[in-house]
């Protein structure tokens, strides 16, 4: 049952309506190999090509170049309804004229390959799936008469009951409210683990991507920017763009000069920092995580800073309280805003005045540098 998906240089180009040129690259030579029993999240900004990649894998759109395989089966040229790949739509795309039961049973009863003709078998399999996703008691309802979370479960059940080898989920939690989204995260992981098949889950939310994925794929403007375990992505983003998606890094543009990274009026020591990743695309950048910075209110400039620490002179602008943590925002010549996240379990909240000069310090070994 568990079959891996492999992508080899998959490219998809969209014609540009304005010019007669070759058009915009929606997918640029995506190569990846996904195991048969994995939860993969696919992270990227809107327009990065996440949905296009899913649609190409599902067979709704052909790739312009490159090949796809599911297990030993080549997917190129195979019609969508013969691929054995499930697709859960962002808007769920439930059949509005059918009941919950008929929606879930649709694939089994109507598929071209090995349709289930015996009503008793159909009933048993649909019942088992209704049990798995927790929709008991709602079988006879119309899909317009159930809540958003229940519709999400119908969409998932409808796909899973057909025993897909791979399930593609296009922002499946996007249409749910925040509370439900948190609960469905655990549910999705539980259901996947129970079935032992691969889920490929598209999301624009970095927390969701890190929390749910066994591995995370980061797409940046049609290219696969990084594909690794969440803790690696979080600690060692492969490019400044990836660091930007993660929403937890301060990124200083600049350049490397005599053993230091020069950004505006800041000069950060590179000794002790991991060697700059020179292969990364884009301009040189120095990235330091928001929660690894210490704030020294001015006056304690020399007292608080340990030897060998990197530092930056800043002005305090504002702070934002979010329960367990406070995020402080500073302005500096090196970057327009520098954010520092302080967890209240470890730090007392600071009393800072607007425009108050401060000094930020951090361990150079924590920085991620692209040159």
């Amino acid at each position, binding site marked *: 049952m568990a079959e891996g998906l492999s992508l080899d240089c998959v490219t998809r180009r969209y014609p540009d309506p304005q010019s007669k040129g070759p058009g915009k690259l929606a997918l640029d030579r995506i190569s990846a190999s996904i195991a048969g029993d994995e939860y993969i999240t696919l992270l990227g900004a809107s327009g990065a090509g996440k949905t296009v990649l899913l649609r190409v894998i599902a067979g709704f759109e052909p790739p312009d170049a490159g090949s796809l395989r599911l297990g030993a089966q080549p997917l190129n040229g195979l019609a969508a309804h013969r691929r054995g790949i499930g697709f859960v739509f962002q*808007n769920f795309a439930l*059949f*509005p004229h059918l009941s919950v039961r008929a929606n879930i049973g649709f694939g089994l009863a109507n598929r071209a390959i090995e349709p289930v003709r015996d009503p008793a078998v159909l009933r048993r399999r649909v019942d088992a799936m209704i049990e798995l996703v927790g929709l008991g008691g709602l079988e006879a309802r119309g899909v317009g008469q159930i809540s958003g979370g229940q519709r999400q479960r119908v969409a998932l059940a409808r796909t899973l009951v057909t025993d897909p080898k791979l399930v593609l989920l296009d922002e499946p939690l996007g249409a749910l409210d925040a509370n439900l989204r948190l609960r469905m995260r655990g549910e999705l992981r539980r259901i996947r683990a129970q079935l032992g098949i691969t889920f490929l889950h598209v999301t624009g939310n970095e927390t969701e991507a890190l929390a749910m994925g066994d591995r995370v794929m980061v797409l940046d403007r049609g290219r696969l920017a990084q594909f690794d375990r969440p803790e690696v992505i979080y600690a060692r983003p492969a490019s400044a763009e990836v660091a930007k998606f993660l929403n937890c890094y301060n990124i200083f543009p600049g350049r490397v000069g005599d053993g230091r990274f020069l950004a505006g009026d800041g000069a950060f020591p590179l000794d002790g920092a991991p060697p700059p990743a020179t292969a990364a695309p884009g301009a040189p950048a120095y990235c330091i995580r928001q929660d690894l910075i210490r704030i020294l209110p001015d006056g304690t400039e020399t007292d608080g800073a340990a030897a060998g620490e990197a530092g930056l002179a800043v002005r305090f602008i504002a702070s934002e309280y979010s329960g367990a943590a406070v995020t402080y925002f500073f302005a500096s010549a090196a970057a327009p805003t520098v954010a520092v996240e302080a967890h209240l379990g470890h730090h007392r909240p600071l009393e800072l005045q607007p425009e108050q000069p401060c000094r930020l310090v951090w361990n150079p070994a924590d920085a991620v540098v692209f040159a």
Partner: protein
Amino acid sequence: MGQSMSDARAMPATASETPLAGGARRSLASYALILPGVVWMLLFLVLPMLMMVYVSFWTQTTFKIEPILTTKSWVMFFSSPTYVGALWTTLRIWLIVLAATIVVGYPTALFVGLFVRSKTLSTALLVLCVIPFWTSFLIRVLAWRPMLGEQGAINILLRAAHIIHQPIDALLFTELSVIIGMTQIYCVFMVGPIAFMLGRIDPNLIEAARDLGAGFGRIFTRIILPLSMPGVVVGAIFVSVMVLGEFATSAALSGRKVNLLGNIIVTQVGSLKWAFAAVVGVVLTVVMGIVVSLFLRIVDLRREL
């Protein structure tokens, strides 16, 4: 009217004190909106229909009609094979034309509403369907004569292609020509509503069905057809009401061989037989009422639209 308008404007100030009274007044004002429509329909639809039923029981003599109640006209209608035959002809032609408009119209609507991705193009195609309506009804009907006649375009073409050697004379002045003419004229009323319903189907639904393994045939019968049924019903109601009341197409294309209920009304009114025309009118109205309510049974339009 002016009084209630100023009341409505003053309402926000007092709304917090008497929300219920305010709500009641608002709904009273909203009833005023339908007043012109109700008055119009009562005067020019309900009243004339009651009048028609009443007149159908009047006594008709050769030159005058008197309000003395009698069932003579009704007995005459149902005892004459000509008139009962006209009722059956009307029903038969209606069913055939209805089927023909669905057979011709549904695939067209499927193409326009579902397969044409661009909204602009599908609107343009629907406008194309309406182009025949830029000419008058009479011209559209009469234009079929040089097409279908013994020396008409179709016979000339078929003979030039050596498919036939003798002209086909069954094309014009027969029931067939009436059916061809009516199908052409009323087809667009079927295409429009169906294309509208098909255009509203979320493309993701079809992709989802495909993804679940269904081939096109299954997707059509299980998803597309049921979701477009409201369009078919609305189209069928349009076509039915128009075909059942038809008289001009059959008069122009049948050579007076095909008599529909509409033709009988025209003839009877022409010879001042008002009572008998009213009988036929009542019969026709009852038939239409039954047909429309049967169609509304198929689909709950209030839920679907």
